């Protein structure tokens, strides 16, 4: 095989291109594996919360303060606000060595309605993508109050495709899966949620908490609308549990301050690496 000038050129060009590409991809690959390894070893497992419509990032202040008084673990509270123009701001910070901080993600557009839910889910995706790079966690827990639960559901069905990050547990509180409609009239949103339910993570443990002031509603959301969550989650995720709390503070907006709800969060959502510290009240655990 003769080495013509052309063939020398071919070899030179291909070797040149591939040398450059190999060099850069080597650097990239080392760095990306480094990130993967650090994430794998990370011990942080935040609780990421989404408030309902018309609420701000301050919605869960009381809840976090009460939880801290209950378990003395001094969880940090970080508030993330997503603006309509894509800007994301942070208030508060996560204490070093705090493995279970609370992160609240709120939106400038906090209006009701299916279209807004979709927009907010997309905004939540943007915030989540920033959070995962900033804090490098490999698992997290979710809490959504009212429409926050709808945003979570939409997010999990459409935007959550992480190979290294796992959502371990999700609790929605007073979430109207069928808005304010009666059970026999399914909204477009519920229909869509049911249609894409297969996209939900199959190893998720899910709690849906309803409040009830009388026998049918929590003052705002019909019980049947919260219960409709079963058509989405039941049988799709690993565990689906439905709880109804009644009595004092079972009104829709008061639910995040309700002692029974706080107990449920502490028992079922938060980590228990040291069970001795749990003294005092312990209602029956719902699931493992």
């Amino acid at each position, binding site marked *: 095989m003769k080495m013509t000038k052309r063939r020398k050129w071919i070899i030179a060009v291909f070797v040149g291109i591939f040398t450059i590409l190999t060099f*850069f991809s080597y650097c990239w*690959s080392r760095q990306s*594996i480094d990130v*993967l390894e650090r994430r794998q070893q990370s011990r942080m497992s935040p609780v990421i919360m989404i408030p309902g419509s018309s609420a701000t990032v301050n919605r869960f202040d009381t809840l976090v303060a009460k939880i801290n008084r209950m378990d003395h673990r001094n969880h940090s509270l970080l508030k993330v606000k997503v603006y309509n123009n894509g800007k994301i701001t942070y208030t508060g910070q996560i204490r070093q060595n705090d493995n279970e901080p609370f992160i609240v993600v709120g939106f400038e557009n906090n209006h009701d309605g299916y279209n807004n839910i979709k927009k907010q889910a997309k905004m939540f995706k943007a915030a989540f993508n920033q959070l995962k790079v900033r804090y490098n966690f490999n698992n997290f827990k979710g809490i959504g109050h009212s429409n926050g639960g709808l945003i979570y559901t939409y997010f999990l069905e459409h935007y959550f495709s992480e*190979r290294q990050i796992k959502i371990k547990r999700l609790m929605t509180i007073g979430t109207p899966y069928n808005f304010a409609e009666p059970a026999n009239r399914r909204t477009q949103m519920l229909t869509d949620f049911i249609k894409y339910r297969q996209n939900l993570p199959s190893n998720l443990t899910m709690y849906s908490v309803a409040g009830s002031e009388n026998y049918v509603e929590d003052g705002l959301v019909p019980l049947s609308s919260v219960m409709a969550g079963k058509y989405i989650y039941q049988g799709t995720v690993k565990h689906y549990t439905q709880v109804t709390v009644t009595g004092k503070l079972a009104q829709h907006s008061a639910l995040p301050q309700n002692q029974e709800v706080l107990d449920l969060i502490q028992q079922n959502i938060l980590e228990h690496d040291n069970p001795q510290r749990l003294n005092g009240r312990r209602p029956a655990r719902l699931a493992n």
Partner: protein
Amino acid sequence: MGKKRRFVNWATWFNERPFVKIMQQTMIILFPVALIGSFTWMISDNLLATNGFLANIFRVRQWLPYMQFWRQLFNDITLATIGLVSPYAAFTSATLTTYHYKHPNIIAGLTAAATYILIFFHSQRGAQTIEMRYYNAGWLIVAVLIGYAIGLIFAKWGKEFSIADVRLRDQQLMSKSLANLPLVVGILSGAFVLHLGYALLRIFNLDVTANQILTSSISKNSNYLLNGFLSLNNTVSVWLGFAEPVRLSSGAYNNEVTSNLVYALTHKTLVNVPYPFTPSSLYNGFANFGGVGVTLALVIGILWIGRHKNQQTVAVWSALPAIFNTGLPIMFGAQVFLNPFFVLPFVFLPVLNMVIASGFIFLHIIPPIVYPVPNGTPGILVPFIGTGGDWRALVLSIALLLLDIAVYLPFIKWAFEPHQANGGKEASQNEND
């Protein structure tokens, strides 16, 4: 020697069949469209996409503002070129057919394009907009067939209407156009019936089922034979002219890939990962140098021994897309579809690569591919990146590429020899166009 001569003679004869010839001429005419589309696809999907290879290694996101916007712009060019290549192919093949049978008629081309679009046009499926996947290269062969059939109809019953007729007066031109009207109406009515039938099929979602079965079986369980089956399925269907292969994107993470990754990240070693032979890693790693059918080897082979200046130009332009696994330009430029000269290396080299590579993995000479690899990573760098920068893996993939080139060389020689013997006329025609 006799066997070789018989193969060359038969392949040459096969390439002279009217339909095959028209298919290959269509490819030649559409080459610029395929080339431009592939370049813009490379830009939008490799350089400007978040998970693209070039975007990652050059950190494009950090210095280019509005990356999504630019990406969308280039993606639009891709949609207008290779995204619509099937209607273009129907147009070209119908026109060429009428010229081939000495009844030139450009209305045939228009009718064929309209027919093709109508058959697969379906504006209603829930709230979804028009589906584009029947218009890209995936259904190329169907488009060429429809164009050929319509070309035949026009050659038999149509009234001649060639480009040269534009010199006629407007009235004469109109009378020619009107003379073809009944045929256009007839063919479009036929297309409407097909459209209706196809719409019914789609309501029951039959058209996507086959693809889903394939994809789900790949992402569920690992089975060594599946690797070969997947590769054969891809190469054979692309060779037949369904030119959009099933992509095993790096997003298709299944449990096995994940447990491999978790194992490697916790133990910090690739030795003894639980599933060393997952389909997506073997196929993406070794069967895909330069896109389906190891087309990078074909490009380099043509550069190495090609004699014609045209072939050289085609190969030079196709080289960059082929490096980033886009084989479409060279498949158009070297007329790979339905070409018996290329079927053997095109179909069997990927399988050979996978078998050799898995042998090396089995003997622990190279580690298995475990780490995630960005989309559009040059085929021969996939094993390197996927093993976290293991040099032995890089050496193996270069060696495999050299082997592939060596296997392609004789086929390239045979494919272009007969053209030189009796193809003088064809070559001069190309230059005139």
